[in-house]
């Protein structure tokens, strides 16, 4: 007889995955040698090209060269990443940051996707569980080794059959 997996083991597995994701997401690069590259990919170019500072390749773009020089000087002066980003935001406006911050209304940008996914996931799991629990249980058939063997043979021989696909 088929043994359906218990919900709790899946819930534990999901919790473990969520923990791993949360831990990994909370970690960031701390490699100083790559800070110019890293920060130039967290800032937008101000020349109007709609590209990140580290990727602006507009011909003769004076803005990106100047901003990269500012960035290098800020790193050399010992400022932290946060201080550098704040300085750029204060000077060029909030649109210079390539992603929302984690303060004020910006935080909603980060929370909403996680909240929607979590709600949809929980909703789906609860719905399927309600359906599977509410399902009318058919009485178990008496065991018949011949029929079981036949079923296994049919399963093997029809695996190349017609189910699935799009």
């Amino acid at each position, binding site marked *: 007889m088929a043994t*359906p997996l218990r919900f709790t083991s899946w819930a534990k597995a999901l919790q473990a995955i969520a923990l791993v994701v949360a831990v990994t997401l909370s970690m960031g690069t701390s490699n100083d040698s790559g800070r110019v590259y890293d920060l130039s990919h967290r800032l937008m170019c101000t020349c109007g090209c709609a590209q990140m500072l580290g990727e602006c390749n507009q011909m003769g773009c004076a803005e990106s060269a100047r901003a990269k020089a500012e960035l290098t000087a800020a790193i050399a002066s010992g400022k932290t990443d946060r201080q550098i980003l704040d300085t750029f935001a204060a000077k060029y406006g909030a649109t210079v940051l390539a992603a929302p911050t984690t303060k004020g209304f910006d935080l909603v940008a980060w929370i909403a996707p996680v909240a929607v996914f979590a709600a949809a996931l929980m909703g789906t799991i609860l719905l399927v569980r309600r359906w599977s629990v509410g399902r009318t249980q058919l009485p178990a058939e008496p065991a018949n080794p011949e029929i079981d063997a036949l079923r296994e043979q049919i399963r093997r021989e029809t695996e190349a059959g017609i189910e699935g696909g799009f």
Partner: protein
Amino acid sequence: MAAFGSFALLLALALAAYNLFAGTAALRLLASGRPARISADRLADTARRAGIASFVAVTAAAVALAWSALTNDFTITYIAEHSNRALPAPYKFAALWSGQEGSLLLWAWLLGGYGFILRLTHETEVKLYAYAGTILAAVEVFFLAVVNFAAPPFSLLKGAIPDDGNGLNPLLQYPEMVIHPPLLYLGYVGFTIPFAFALGALMMRYPGETWIKVTRRWTLVSWLFLTLGIVVGMHWAYGVLGWGGYWGWDPVENASLMPWLTGTAFLHSVVMQERKGMMKSWNIWLIFATFMLSILGTLLTRGGLVSSVHAFAQSSLGTWFMVFLAIVLAVCVLTYIFKRNHLKSEQRIESLVSRESSFLFNNLVLLTACFVILWGTLFPILSEFVEGSKITVGAPFFDRVAVPIGIFLLFLTGVGPLLPWRAASLQAIRRNFLLPALAVWATVIGGITAGVQPWQDGAFDIGRLYALVAFALAAGVLTAILSEFLRGARVIVRQTSCNLFAAIYLLIRRNTRRYGGYCVHIGVVVAMIGLAGAAFNRSMESELALHDRMGIGPYTLENAGGSQDTNTNYNSESVLLDVYRGGKRVFQVAPERRTYLASDQPQTMAAIHSGPGGDLYVIYEGTDSDTGHPIIKALLNPLVGWIWTGLVFIVFGTLVALTPGLRPIAATVRMPAVRTAPAEAALKGGD
């Protein structure tokens, strides 16, 4: 030619409007059953024929615009703004979709083309096709109204006629540009057909799942075109934008991905409806959403709602599209509310660990991805509304939020097909998952041993962790799919004694949908490996005097001189770089800078050398103002080629899935004699 084109467009609008109103009247007559002076069938047939004629008229308009571009008719504003005499003929033709008015005409023409095929094949399900044809006519009326009144492509230039045009945007003068927009539009527009059938089937309470069977090929073809359009667009961006990437999470790129995600979800969940009669409301809303997201994409592209690197075709058309979108949403909601009783599921999911459940989770993940992209794309507008100031939601946001979702989707791609229908037993799970799980762990160990660690120079790198997880999952999914092929092929080998390759061919022919789908999954996995490879990209920038060298990865680049060229379209300047590997000169690249004469706009042309280890991507960034030496940026992008290879598998798999399969084999199994139960005997008329 301008007068002819304008008249053709007006005629097309009038015919589409007749199709809409006569079609609606005929369907009302049919529904009411009341006798009328003209029979409903004849009225519906005139509506259908008007739809066909409308396509002929809009074709005439499209030909007129193409002819005007090819013959340099600068009396037409659109041609003067988007073409010039020296422009090569293919790009003159491509100028049709490089501007606002032309691209909307292309949209209307493709819509008419799809409608033309639909109306010619109406005999299979006359009433359903009549509903779908009428709904399609409503969409055609909107687009034809836009090109007639809001963005007319044949408006005449005021004042003196120039000797030459402004030329085509240099970014668009690239071979893929000739095919990328039509492919993308074929995808966007194509989803109108399943939308029309879904809405029509709901309106008429069409019984059964026939509308899904009717639209399956339309949906697959549209999905294929959209996929092709997106990936060819990525290739175009990679080659022409000159930053070494192919996807920047730009709003216009996002606009193409959203309907792709919901369309993909629809393709999976309709299997549930076909097999189990489940998810009927869900499927209806998925296809509604796919169509509306296609329109939303156009609104984002045209309406100037969000700033974009693709901002060459913005205007104030946003209001038109917003009103249309609101009408479509209202019609969908109202129709659903009044007819939803028709959509009750016949069965329910029995277990959380089953094929049905995996489809549900697959849909959940795809729709979450769609929501995340929509949310990120529209958040700047929301932020401006709430806080009064706009913010940027760029690649760092999407990378952080969408990449984990993509990895989860990759996981489901492997798990879903291995789960049996209804419920999975532990034994079945062990049997099906053993090999893929081994492949996952072998890849993790092999990857870390080979240097694919989630840390670099002592620092943790989340991109590399994602890449390692993606490689491992990809190995698991590929193992799972290949074992499915082998298991099925072995059965055929036993049955027919043919060799393994012939058995695989026969296996695919017997069930084109299933194994075509697996080929598409292989393509997606291969493309994901290519995307994950971005974590290992390297770049180097250096000023190179003559015979100076710079190294990147296994390559050394040496400045071997420069060259200049000129033609009627542009002036170019390039740097010749000899590329050495292991001390041996292996090839030469020549990154280029062009200045287009008509528009006086500069353009970078990257030099890309693709090899088994990845792409060497070289950009000539300009010259140092003090020394006059060229500044060269070189990037080493491993695994990029896998993305384009993945597309080949996706196209092949979709074409296989579109091919009718052979009739399933009739297995003859000898049944042991079973004693007839009393109840069964009673049913058979026994005593």
